[in-house]
């Protein structure tokens, strides 16, 4: 029998003991490299293990993001935690269960088939045997590599998977004890930084005396080349020093940027790495060409908490606590940046606020570590300030998407070109695509990286979801990867999915209108994928699509559908809006197909969160620039959707239908933004093609209609 293809996490971390350990207190510890970022993954991983082992959930402990003993599963990103870590844990548990039963059968002198597992105990013909996982654990060789050949349970046998298990991390979060920000050991020192304004900027003078006067307390100033940190036993002293520091620092060689670079339109015509994906260029001139351009500006992750890390250097060993998305990669990146052997670094995850992608978390860990190395024996708590989080985190890149679609004589797409202009969507450190921020401030900064985007095999970056899920005979992507963006850009929830799905779905509404057909009926006429048809039809029914009124009344209903990365979860969304001077999203219905669902309520929570965030991006958000760089540095200049603006949401799931589990963290954002865009176009009778849908743009659209 040939072994099945193992998930990548098991290929990289084959030893069983990297994943599972039976503990003396009759619990089993499952380790995952994926970390809790508010998405409920730790709970879901526990559910998978409980079912596969037949152990009660309260006997399953989950260790998450720990370089001392957990597996390296790269970053917690791209909605892959359930698909990759979940399937790895399932295979490991199935194999360990089989090994344990084999040992028990030997002891009991019976056949393995005579044994069943109930609550972690082994029963023979239904009667207790005195044997369980913990009695045989010492005889199971967990140093063996996983083979992936052990029989796994059928989904019909799941008891814990598929249940609304409450999140394990939430009780601490409603009672005030939860985050890396809140850890305060006795040897704590607080730290803040003065940020280098940008790559290449050189700190020519720093008036330390003036900063000390402003700080009004015990203060150490740690300086290494163009990196400066203020350290104090008193947090407010370190904070005051950092707040005052920019006034007392002079920088040479500061790069200036132009405010107009904040608009997506600026991207067109910039130097780019160009490539074509898909069909060769069409040789025939188009007969019925339709075009549509959609843009989204730079968008912030805008985490509620500024990035924070703890670092302590003691006896030659650096221990870091971080809320980053991948502790093993952080460990490698820190070791490289600090010229430490990898064995001299430990990285352990502690909770932070939601990050929604690559924000300042890893950078803060290097900041803290740089200080820790200079002040051994102290635990350095480095926290970014609010303006630092907005000003220096990598932002989601602006994107411009133009569709050029030639129609057949029935008004259906025949030849479809998607043209994309975008800076890179991934500059995560350590992947040859980026590096930790403070390394740029060192005496020998790393060479500037040539931007690259995730490959199509990984779902693409700017090209993510650029291929329509609809029946299009000929499709190609022309991707212009912008080589020099004015600000650092990196992964934000869904990467290119939002502008790409918005463009596709906007165009389909226009094509339906040209054909004189209902937008839903038009979509269904060119949609063969049965799973997509099911969610699209289902959400339309729930939303009462057939009562949709005429266009241009100020009230609109819009629909959209996508399959995340064209291979993960399906989501269809209907949005109902009212447009006067501003857009108000009144209701959103979402129907998703995520295959096997581990925790339905957890999935709904993720769908809802993606819906709210996508509405916020679409209606309100834009990172603004001035010549110094990012200028939207607080919540007044970077407003997000508020309680008074959030719609009623109905998010449902179709049954899994025997399909494998698919990640859901990002599947609702594209269809939601697209449905809102279409609903606004329906309400106004004219389309707004540039996000965010500000009052100005609404007024301009209305004038255009008049």
């Amino acid at each position, binding site marked *: 029998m040939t072994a099945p293809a193992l998930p990548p996490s098991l290929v990289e971390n084959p030893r069983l003991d990297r994943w599972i350990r039976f503990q003396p207190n009759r619990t089993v510890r499952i380790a995952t490299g994926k970390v809790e970022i508010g998405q409920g993954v730790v709970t879901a991983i526990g559910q998978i293990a409980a079912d596969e082992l037949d152990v009660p959930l309260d006997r399953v402990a989950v260790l998450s993001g720990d370089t001392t003993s957990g597996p390296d599963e790269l970053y917690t990103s791209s909605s892959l935690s359930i698909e990759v870590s979940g399937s790895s844990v399932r295979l490991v548990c199935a194999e360990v269960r089989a090994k344990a039963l084999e040992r028990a059968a030997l002891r009991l002198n019976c056949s393995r088939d005579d044994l069943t597992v109930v609550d972690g105990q082994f029963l023979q013909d239904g009667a207790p045997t005195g044997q369980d996982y913990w009695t045989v654990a010492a005889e199971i060789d967990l140093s063996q590599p996983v083979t992936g050949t052990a029989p796994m349970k059928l989904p019909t046998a799941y008891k814990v998977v598929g249940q609304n298990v409450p999140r394990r991390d939430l009780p601490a979060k409603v009672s005030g004890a939860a985050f890396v920000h809140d850890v305060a050991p006795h040897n704590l020192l607080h730290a803040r930084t003065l940020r280098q304004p940008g790559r290449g900027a050189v700190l020519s003078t720093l008036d330390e005396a003036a900063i000390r006067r402003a700080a009004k307390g015990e203060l150490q100033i740690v300086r290494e080349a163009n990196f400066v940190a203020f350290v104090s036993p008193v947090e407010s002293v370190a904070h005051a020093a950092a707040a005052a520091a920019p006034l007392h620092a002079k920088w040479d060689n500061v790069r200036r940027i132009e405010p107009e670079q904040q608009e997506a339109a600026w991207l067109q015509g910039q130097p780019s790495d160009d490539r074509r994906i898909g069909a060769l260029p069409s040789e025939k001139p188009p007969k019925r060409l339709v075009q549509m351009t959609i843009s989204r500006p730079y968008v912030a992750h805008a*985490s509620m908490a500024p990035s924070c890390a703890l670092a302590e250097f003691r006896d030659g060993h650096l221990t870091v606590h971080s809320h980053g998305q991948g502790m093993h990669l952080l460990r490698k990146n820190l070791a490289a940046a600090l010229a430490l052997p990898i064995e001299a670094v430990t990285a352990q995850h502690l909770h932070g*606020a939601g990050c929604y992608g690559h924000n300042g978390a890893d950078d803060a860990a290097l900041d803290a570590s740089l200080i820790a190395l200079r002040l051994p024996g102290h635990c350095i708590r480095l926290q970014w300030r609010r303006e630092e989080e907005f000003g220096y985190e990598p932002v989601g890149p602006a994107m411009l998407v133009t569709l050029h679609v030639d129609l057949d004589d029935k008004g259906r797409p025949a030849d479809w070109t998607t043209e994309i202009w975008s800076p890179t969507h991934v500059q995560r450190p350590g992947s040859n695509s980026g590096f930790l921020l403070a390394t740029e401030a060192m005496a020998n900064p790393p060479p500037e990286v040539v931007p690259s985007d995730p490959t199509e095999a990984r779902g693409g970056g700017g090209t993510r979801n650029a291929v329509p899920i609809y029946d299009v005979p000929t499709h190609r992507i022309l991707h212009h990867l912008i080589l020099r963006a004015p600000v650092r850009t990196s992964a934000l929830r869904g990467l290119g999915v939002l502008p790409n799905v918005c463009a596709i779905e906007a165009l389909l509404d226009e094509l339906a209108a040209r054909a004189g057909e209902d937008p839903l009926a038009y979509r269904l006429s060119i949609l063969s994928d049965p799973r997509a048809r099911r969610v699209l039809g289902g959400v339309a029914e729930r939303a009462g699509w057939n009562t949709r009124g005429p266009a241009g009344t100020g009230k609109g209903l819009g629909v959209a559908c996508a399959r995340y990365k064209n291979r993960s979860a399906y989501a269809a969304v209907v949005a109902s809006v009212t447009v006067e001077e501003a857009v108000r999203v009144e209701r959103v219905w979402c129907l998703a197909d995520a295959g096997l669902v581990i925790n339905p309520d957890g999935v709904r929570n993720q769908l809802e*969160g993606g819906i709210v965030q996508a509405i916020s991006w679409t209606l309100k958000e834009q990172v603004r620039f001035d010549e110094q760089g990012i200028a939207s540095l*607080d919540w007044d200049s970077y407003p997000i959707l508020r309680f*008074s603006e959030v719609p009623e949401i109905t998010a449902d799931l179709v049954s899994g239908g025997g399909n494998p589990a698919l990640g859901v963290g990002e599947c609702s954002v594209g269809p939601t933004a697209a449905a809102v865009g279409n609903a606004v176009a329906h309400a106004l009778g004219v389309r707004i093609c540039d996000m965010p849908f500000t009052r100005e743009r609404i007024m301009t659209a209305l004038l255009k209609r008049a």
Partner: protein
Amino acid sequence: MAITFAVNGVARQVDVPDTVSLLEVLRNHLGLMGTRYGCGLEQCGCCMVLVDDQPSYACTREAGTLEGRRITTIEGLSTPAKLHPLQQAFLEEQAGQCGYCLSGILISAKALLDRNPNPTRAEIVAALDKHLCRCGAHQRILRAVERAAGLLRDGRPA
């Protein structure tokens, strides 16, 4: 200066400069870490506490104004044995994702329910609108406050 005030029903005295923030006092002098820094600008609500039953931003409230005041933080909602009905309702509704905003939101919700045991949805929205939540758990949070109102009124969810 020495400041005497009550925190979660316990008399406390701290000796700090009078311009130090209440946030700093709670976290770094009294070890109450549930009140959190989000912006320092009264824009996000992560640091909300009650001062004499009124929701107040701890990030900008100066210690010098606290003499004789009563402060309630997230740690003051529950006892070791029993969660506050608001906390219970938030867990029952699974109202939260990352949870960083929840301390402040629970505090504002408590202030609301203390003065209005039977709020409408619109009144709950108005009471929480100064709070930001980036994960998008708003609807769950609103449902949880309604549920807590029911638990407080008659021991049953609304």
